[in-house]
């Protein structure tokens, strides 16, 4: 059995849990807890360890989606999650410009962990307050070569599109001679508690 993983990173309340839930074939192994901090009362619950979704490709290949915890105090987990990833998605809440700087920091941190391909997904584009993609590109200081994709994390097709664009980028890198290296499953830092948690 070959296992590969994609990491979904992003600031607090960017929509990472919803993103993974939209395409995962298992009930997302989520570690959400009620928020106690006054400053982070944007939503009722937040992910305190990680989200974990699965897409079985065939009998020999499984893709795992890991959502990083959005709160800063859990960023010690990012490096562990980043190890051996095929690539990563940085999810940004288009309607909360106050999180753009944090998104940029997360992006740069993950780039430092591994020079793997990545895409940036501008979530909550259905929100009236959402910034336009061209404005977000400038605000996030994204080069025109970096894919910035509009999406709504609760819409399966949008999430599929983001993942496909990431995989196309990985293919392009392979064609350009910058192939990735497959990490043995035992080194992927997969949480053993959820590997058999199939429900759907």
């Amino acid at each position, binding site marked *: 059995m070959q296992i590969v993983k994609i990491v979904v990173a992003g600031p607090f309340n960017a929509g990472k849990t919803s993103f993974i839930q939209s395409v995962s074939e298992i009930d997302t192994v989520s570690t959400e807890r009620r928020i106690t901090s006054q400053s982070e009362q944007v939503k009722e619950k937040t992910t305190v360890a990680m989200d974990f979704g699965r897409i079985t490709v065939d009998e020999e290949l499984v893709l795992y989606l890991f959502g990083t915890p959005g709160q800063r105090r859990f960023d010690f987990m990012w490096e562990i999650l980043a190890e051996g990833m*095929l690539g990563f998605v940085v999810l940004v809440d288009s309607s909360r410009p106050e999180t753009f700087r944090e998104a940029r920091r997360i992006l740069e941190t993950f780039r430092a962990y591994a020079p793997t391909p990545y895409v940036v997904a501008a979530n909550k584009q259905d929100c009236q307050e959402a910034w336009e993609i061209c404005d977000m590109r400038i605000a996030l200081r994204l080069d025109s070569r970096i894919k910035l994709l509009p999406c709504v994390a609760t819409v399966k097709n949008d999430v599929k599109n983001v993942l496909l664009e990431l995989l196309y980028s990985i293919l392009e890198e392979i064609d350009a001679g910058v192939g990735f290296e497959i990490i043995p499953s035992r080194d992927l830092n997969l949480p053993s508690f959820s590997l058999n948690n199939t429900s759907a």
Partner: protein
Amino acid sequence: MSLKGNLRDFSVTQLLNLINLARKTGTLVVESPVEVILVSFREGKLAYAQDGNEKDNLIAVLHRFNRLSSAQQHALNDRLGHMSDKELGLALINANYLEQGEILSCLQFYFTGILNQLFAWVDGLFHFETDRLPPAGKITVRVDLENIILDGTHRQQEHEQLLDEIPNLDMALKLSNCDGINVRDLNLNTQERRVISSINPGISIRQIASSNQLSENEIRRVVYSLMQAGMVEIMRPEGIRHPLPIMNRPTRTVNAGIPAQKSLINRLINRIRAI
């Protein structure tokens, strides 16, 4: 789709950079609890600015920049005060009061000054109105934003450095032990002299600023220069330690070869398409 937010999270520098790069046309409205500033742009260039609290017409601007005397200002206000700025400008040029270049230069300084005020704002709601243009009858200019952004960035960096050096204005100052130095012999400016004379162990820096009518940035600048000269001392509270930089960790890998890699990715693509 809106371009809105708070300066607390998205600085003026970033905002102007965005407007410049995206060559936006419209009006940026920035609101603090006590003030509203409107700045209009045409294709990413500064065109017009208005401080919500000041309804300066062209005559007032020209007087402010010493192009008109107070007597001229009063006379023009009485005779031509009903005119729009454009009409007024033409009338002044035709009457050989001023040249077009002088008027535009004054307006550029005036608008840039209003825009520069925003760099001091650390908080304030902003939104960009794409269709909103400067009021009819107002004279517009075309000023590149690059230099304004650069100047603003330098000011912001200075502000951040001062904040870092003097984070807490509720601390008190004390005179250093400068044996043999007479303050009167030192080449201090007026602000520095006033601050020195206000130093008292029971008075906070904030109170000194207030009694000398100095802004937070100004008092920080003065205190910083006095500290650099070794004349005053301040007890800094313990700062928050920055997190240690995250180090790259080597990963153990197995090179799968290009055909295998492409096959794996194509299988993933086909699977995700089928979801």
